[in-house]
């Protein structure tokens, strides 16, 4: 049965790649789970060096990408769900597709970012070597529910973990205290100390935590500190998370802003003068991956918004562009109605035509970030 599923997954993947179905990354996992719901607990799928799971509201993609980068720079072979397919089906896909036809792993270790709501489901099936828990804050309440509910579910799963699992945890989050009350294994804490961050090209205080989490996790996995430090300087941003793109003579930097915390993290980068720009672009959608409730934009500090927007050209677009424009207006931002569009294409064209716009900081939420990347780089994800 195991081999049948493995081959079906491989065949599905083959067709997805020849038909160029970009979003089909989770299909092999779907098929496998339909036939064998518990496949992720199958012994044959164990990686030789185990698995690292990284979860939290913000920072999963950057942290898992950096950890993968550090490990690979010391010649460890890593499987990583780098396209962000971070639900159970994405993990099953990534794990199965790493297997040879003879049923052994090509990689030594799995590094997976995990959707915060899916984490309990995944912890029922695998005991990770290291579990990195970054943070929890308001995100897509219409889909995920209140933060307390997720925290409660996390607590119950953390309790059931074997003592061999190590947890890497944000020291500065008081709500994590209760989470680890009944945890049997070792805990390593990280904070926002910037010395490792300063060795990378990443910006933003929030990234200090992501960098420290990845560095401490690689230390737990036995990587030498000198090798870690050497690998930090040539790390590149994860897609849409600070990524820089040049398009029609304008320099864009894309800062995914998908919930109040990530929005404020990114605004802080401007308000602390870590980056400068003459133009800000807000792209705001309410598609399924974004959450359909747009009320959260009023949880963003109005002072941070008006501070960041001051003296800059402001463009607004996306499926809920009017809601974002109204929010900015109420925060005291001077919105010019001719710079407010439904269409992202028209907005990018308007920026291209504006001689005063040379450097653009873009704040898209999730589906908006994929659309913006598609226009600027020609591809949605990688």
């Amino acid at each position, binding site marked *: 049965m195991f081999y049948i599923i493995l081959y079906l997954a491989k065949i599905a993947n083959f067709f997805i790649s020849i038909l160029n179905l970009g979003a089909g990354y989770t299909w092999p996992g779907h098929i496998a789970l339909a036939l064998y719901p518990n496949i992720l607990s199958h012994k044959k799928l164990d990686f030789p060096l185990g698995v690292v799971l990284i979860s939290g509201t913000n920072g999963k993609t950057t942290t898992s990408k950096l950890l993968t980068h550090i490990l690979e720079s010391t010649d460890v072979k890593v499987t990583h769900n780098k396209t962000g397919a971070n639900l159970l089906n994405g993990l099953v896909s990534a794990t199965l597709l790493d297997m040879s036809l003879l049923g052994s792993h090509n990689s030594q270790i799995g590094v997976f970012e995990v959707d915060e709501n899916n984490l309990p489901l995944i912890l029922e099936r695998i005991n990770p070597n290291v579990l990195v828990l970054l943070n929890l804050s*308001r995100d897509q*309440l*219409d889909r995920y529910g*209140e*933060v*307390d*509910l997720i925290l409660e579910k996390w607590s119950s799963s953390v309790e059931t973990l074997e003592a061999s699992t190590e947890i890497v945890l944000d020291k500065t989050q008081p709500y994590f205290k209760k989470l680890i009350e009944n945890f049997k294994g070792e805990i390593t804490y990280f904070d926002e100390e910037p010395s490792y961050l300063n060795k990378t090209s990443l910006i933003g205080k929030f990234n200090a935590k992501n960098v420290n989490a990845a560095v401490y996790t690689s230390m737990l996995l036995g990587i030498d500190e000198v090798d870690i430090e050497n690998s930090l300087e040539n790390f590149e941003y994860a897609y849409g998370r600070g990524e820089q793109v040049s398009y029609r003579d304008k320099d864009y930097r894309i800062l995914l802003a998908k919930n109040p915390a990530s929005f404020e993290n990114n605004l802080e980068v401007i308000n602390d003068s870590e980056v400068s720009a003459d133009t800000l672009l807000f792209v705001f959608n*309410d598609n399924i991956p974004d959450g*359909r*409730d*747009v*009320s*959260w*934009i*009023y*949880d963003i500090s*109005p002072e941070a918004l008006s501070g960041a927007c001051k003296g800059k050209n402001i463009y607004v677009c996306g499926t809920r562009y*009017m*809601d974002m*424009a*109204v*929010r900015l*207006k*109420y*925060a*005291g931002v001077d*919105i010019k*109605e001719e710079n*407010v569009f439904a269409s992202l294409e028209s907005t990018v064209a308007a920026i291209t035509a504006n001689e005063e716009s040379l450097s653009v900081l873009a704040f898209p939420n999730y589906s908006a970030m994929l659309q913006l990347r598609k226009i600027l780089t020609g591809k949605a994800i990688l």
Partner: protein
Amino acid sequence: MKLTIGYFYPELLNLYGDDGNVQILASRARSRGIEVEVINITPKTELTEEMMHSIDLVFMGGGPDSSQHGMYEDLLHKKGPLLSKFIEDEGVGLFICGSYQLLGNYYKAANGKVLDGVGVFDVHTVSFGTKKPRCIGNVVCEIMPELRHDETFNSVNKLGDTLVGFENHGGRTYLGKNILPFAKVLMGHGNNSEDGYEGMLYKNSIGTYLHGPILARNPHLADYLIAKSLNLESLEELDDSLINSAHTASKKLKQ
């Protein structure tokens, strides 16, 4: 002129961007040259009758269960009686989601446990737990004629009779016999997904499930609250073209 807003439990009851309502009220009042003071009332505040007299408009949002633990006893035993008097004396108030429920007679949890409410609004709320799905989605509704025909509302209303917002609640709220609903649901669940009504009106107070926040895309309601609480016959008109377009666009959203 000055507008004093009594903002109850701002830290604990601000789950769905409801804080935006206070930002919007303040912004719209200031645009008319009205001075604004926001008094934050927390469980630590020693609230007095005198303080309540200085408040023109009460706002209270909704919060997660854990936050409600932090203010429930304080509301029921300390702030509740003062708030009830304010409402009974025709004070103007806007109560969203959790606070709308808490000011009712009781909340019956899915396990049958009954939680007393302040009891100033003759409504009660029942949670069916996992037996019934949460009421989630975009909402469009029509303001009840009783409010629409109110003189103050009529004089500030430049938009129309509809309200738009987003709802996300597990509890179903049922109105007592002598209490008016706030609006008639055109799209969405409203109070209980059964009777077709949204929220409630009692004297000059409004209870509602609408987030968005509710005042973001309903400037007529924001202006009504400002005018009513300051006893103004009219308000200077603002340039609301963008906001009105946002309201109109919201009517076409899918539930």
